[in-house]
């Protein structure tokens, strides 16, 4: 009879051989063929080539192939980069290929490796012992190795960028300048100041790729590749994005990207912070008023442009008023202040008071004055004739006149359309009768709002204008609220 365990003995033989083979293979692979070991063997050859004097021979003699790491508990870093980058502090290693080359000396002078490690500046996976994982571009690691030109972004972890030698942080500085020039603050907040349409950017540099929409980006997926592509074409990267295309060159997109990456609120022990960084943090606690012109450029320009022309904004499906033209000439400073501080609820115009857009009361006053001081406003001032008193009108008549003359642009019952919404509570509270009358009478230069009364008196009479104003005032009263809401939904439905 056949031996009942014959099959099992053969099986045991073969499985044992396989197991033994793979155990041996694994032992060799894990213990002898690690990438860092191969790198260090190659480095030892370099050491041997350069061992021309006694010091060099001693270095060669003392060289051990072993795992090297910089442990910096204060920064939570255990960086093993030096296991392959063995020559970063050997001044002779200037003509050798990476990863053996000398690190730029002047940086290491101020940032000794044993105190700072590597990843605080370069990012990347410090724990890794092979280059693929250390670079971590397609590894499971939140902060992959930064490309060389973007490494300057991490300086801002500990430094105030304005106190660094400008030639070392050119990209970040250019990005900062562009941020202001492109008026990014109109929609984005930094340190509590800015618009509310886009996300706040205070910690943008520490976002991981998983917090971004990568669908339309081609791999490799990194935050900086995303930012660069996004600055070139926001809606192309984030479908449906309302972000205005900043129209930048490749280089400018890179600079903006560097600036974005420099926005990092990393908790670093105080002893690591440069004194200017600490001063910067203190300054942020009690912001000083900025000049109005700079404020306008930073927080208004993206939507209002230079304020001379009103325009139709396609993305918002809304009319954006010219705020430095006849409006500023007609309106009082208080009216403008209210508009800036309170915004226009229901539109893209956010409130800018200190709890919202973060502007100081002083700054808002300065901005209002700035608007009124524009050349267009000044030249229009003589048209204003604000002194003419407005008689008490009749709202019912005013409604008929409104429907005939105004509703085409401002919507039935003033809900807005091509032209701004007039039934807006903030607007009606802030706008006094003479402001409304002047505006209707003279129109708004450089916008679609025509003058409804010519200098010779043709067009609407003063009484008719008073009737319209009475009608507008009636929109404010609570009894009109429901009618308004119905109107609004009807207008919304018909669009």
């Amino acid at each position, binding site marked *: *009879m056949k031996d009942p*365990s014959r099959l*099992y003995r053969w*099986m*045991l033989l073969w499985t044992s051989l396989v197991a033994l083979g793979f155990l041996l*293979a694994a032992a060799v692979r*894990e213990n002898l063929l690690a990438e860092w070991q191969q790198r260090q063997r190659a480095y030892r050859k370099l050491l041997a080539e350069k061992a021309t004097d006694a010091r060099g021979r001693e270095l060669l003699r003392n060289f051990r192939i072993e795992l090297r790491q910089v442990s910096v508990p204060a920064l939570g870093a*255990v960086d093993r980069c030096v296991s392959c980058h063995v020559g970063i502090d050997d001044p002779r290693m200037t003509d050798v290929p990476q990863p053996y080359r000398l690190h730029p000396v002047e940086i290491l002078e101020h940032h000794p490796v044993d105190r700072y490690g590597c990843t605080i500046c370069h990012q990347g996976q410090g724990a*890794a012992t092979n280059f693929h994982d250390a670079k971590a571009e397609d590894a*499971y690691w939140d902060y992959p190795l930064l490309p060389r030109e973007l490494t300057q972004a991490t300086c801002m972890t500990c430094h105030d960028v304005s106190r660094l030698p400008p030639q070392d942080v050119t990209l970040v500085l250019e990005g900062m300048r562009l941020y202001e020039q492109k008026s990014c603050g109109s929609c984005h907040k930094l340190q509590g100041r800015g618009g509310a349409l886009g996300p706040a950017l205070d910690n943008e540099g520490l976002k991981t790729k998983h917090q971004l929409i990568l669908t339309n980006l081609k791999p490799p997926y990194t935050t900086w590749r995303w930012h660069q592509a996004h600055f070139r074409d926001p809606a192309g990267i984030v479908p449906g994005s309302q972000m205005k295309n900043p129209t930048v060159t490749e280089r400018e997109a890179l600079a903006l990207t560097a600036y974005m990456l420099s926005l990092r609120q990393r908790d670093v022990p105080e002893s690591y912070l440069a004194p200017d960084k600490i001063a910067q943090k203190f300054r942020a606690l009690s912001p000083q008023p900025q000049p109005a012109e700079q404020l306008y450029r930073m927080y208004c320009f993206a939507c209002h442009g230079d304020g001379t022309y009103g325009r139709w904004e396609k993305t918002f499906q809304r009319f954006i008023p010219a705020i430095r033209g006849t409006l500023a000439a007609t309106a009082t400073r208080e009216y403008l202040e209210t508009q800036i501080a309170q915004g226009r609820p229901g539109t893209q115009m956010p409130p800018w008071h200190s709890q919202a857009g973060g502007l100081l009361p002083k700054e808002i006053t300065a901005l209002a004055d700035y608007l009124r001081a524009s050349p267009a406003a000044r030249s229009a001032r003589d048209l204003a004739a604000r002194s003419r008193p407005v008689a008490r009108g009749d709202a019912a008549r005013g409604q008929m006149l409104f429907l005939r003359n105004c509703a085409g642009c401002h919507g039935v019952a003033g809900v807005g359309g091509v032209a701004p919404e007039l039934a807006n509570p903030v607007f009606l509270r802030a706008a006094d009768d003479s402001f409304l009358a002047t505006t209707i009478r003279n129109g708004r230069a450089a916008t679609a709002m025509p003058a409804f009364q010519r200098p010779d008196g043709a067009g609407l009479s003063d009484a008719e204008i008073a009737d319209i104003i009475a009608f507008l005032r009636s929109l404010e009263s609570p009894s009109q609220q429901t009618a308004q809401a119905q109107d609004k939904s009807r207008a919304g439905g018909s669009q």
Partner: protein
Amino acid sequence: MGTTATIPEKTSATQEFLDNLRQLPRNLKDAWFRLGRLPESEREESQATFHNLFLHLHSVRVHLRTLRPSLTLGLGLIATFSFLVLVITGLLLMIYYKPSTALAYQSMKDIHYVVATGRFIRNIHRWAAHIMVIAVFAHMARVFFTASYKKPREFNWLVGLGLLVLTLALSFTGYLLPYDQLAYWATTIGANIANSPRELTDALGITPYFDPGGFQKRLLLGANTVGEDSLIRFYVLHVFILPLLLVILLSVHFWRIRKDGGLARPEDPPGGLAEWGGKLHRVFEPLATKTYGLMAVVRGRRPPVNRGPEGTVMSWPHLLWAELAVLMLTIAVTLVLSFYIDAPLKEIANPAVPENPAKAPWYFLGLQELVSYSAFMGGLVIPTIAVLGLALIPFLDRRPGGEGLWFGTPGERTVAWQSLLFGLVCTVGLLAFTVNFGWLRNWFPEIHQLWIIAINPGSILVLLFAGWSLWTLKRKNSVRLAAVALFTCFLVGFVVLTYFATVHRGPNWQFYWWPSQWPVH
């Protein structure tokens, strides 16, 4: 060996001491191995088995049917041995692992990059865990389809069920330990499944007064969200409590195999003819006047070697070879997988960045699919029904017959095939329907949640399977066949749902044909 070195009467103690010292290696070897060489007679083979704590788990002789690879497929052994591998690699990992949210992830990285062969050891641990879960499920299916749960083995079936639950619990608790994104969100999903009674209590509006879901979740996590408390809880469960329970249950499981007369096999009629080794043999018929104890077999009056009339062979060496072969097979497969495929380790756990899709460990994905329809039904009711149903099988099907034979009852194979088809059509059909047409909430957005708890693809599947089983009961007039119908459907449903949720569910639990089509986040 066997000869005792005689100590001469007239020697000094010094001489005796020196002699003993000289003979120390040999005596040590004798003390250690006792027999000192491989057993040669069956008597010695028997002694080798029952004089050894570990080997005496076996009976001295083993039936040839039991040795056939086709009966058990070695599944129970594979599960046991992968557990052994898990214990050994787990102890090694424990030396380096630090169960704290601040350190756990970094210690995983150290194991991966710095500990000598640490990555390989962790891979083995991961793969052995997968193999163990698969083997335990397959072993249960094997025991069911060979009707090996029948009297007197009902209790051992229950013990096995306990082992299944413990295995899943062990694997699940191990999932959190790396504290990466995968761990964090899989555990969050698991905790939400524990929280699932909330769906019912919320729908009834009684959660503020009676909240078993919240209690279960807090019991599991030690907090409201996954964090430090959960990690230490899972760690203690994973490295101490659950393995201890598993070892205890495993011992009972093996002990019961011995006490229940070895692995289930058809009874050879005493005195009749039975086929083994390709020939017909007369089956050993015990004399009515004689008591056959174990020692009677061992003491020389024993059946002839290798052609014993009762169809058995000596456990040493035959069963031992078989077990060693399965042990090495398990190890070899684990090693090969571990050599080529690394255990996953994602980014460090980040409560602010949810994984999308966040998926539970694969063996819970079938449940997660059901939970996506109704948390209460999928997370509590259906698993309870499944475990209870499995536990009741040996108590509802008590007619002997077919033990130890694959599909041993007449008509069983047909029913199994039909049920396979039925289960497949039902599960795939329901999934396809739900993907294409949605469910009650899509059609009646205002509907009360209680309706959805009651009527959802999960509960309908349970009803379909139960109906099919009852129909088989009536149609075939056999409890066993009804059980086969139900069990097959359960198995098919489990496999299909697990596969579906693994492969075809993407971000926001949307349907995708392949993971490569997922939008990148």
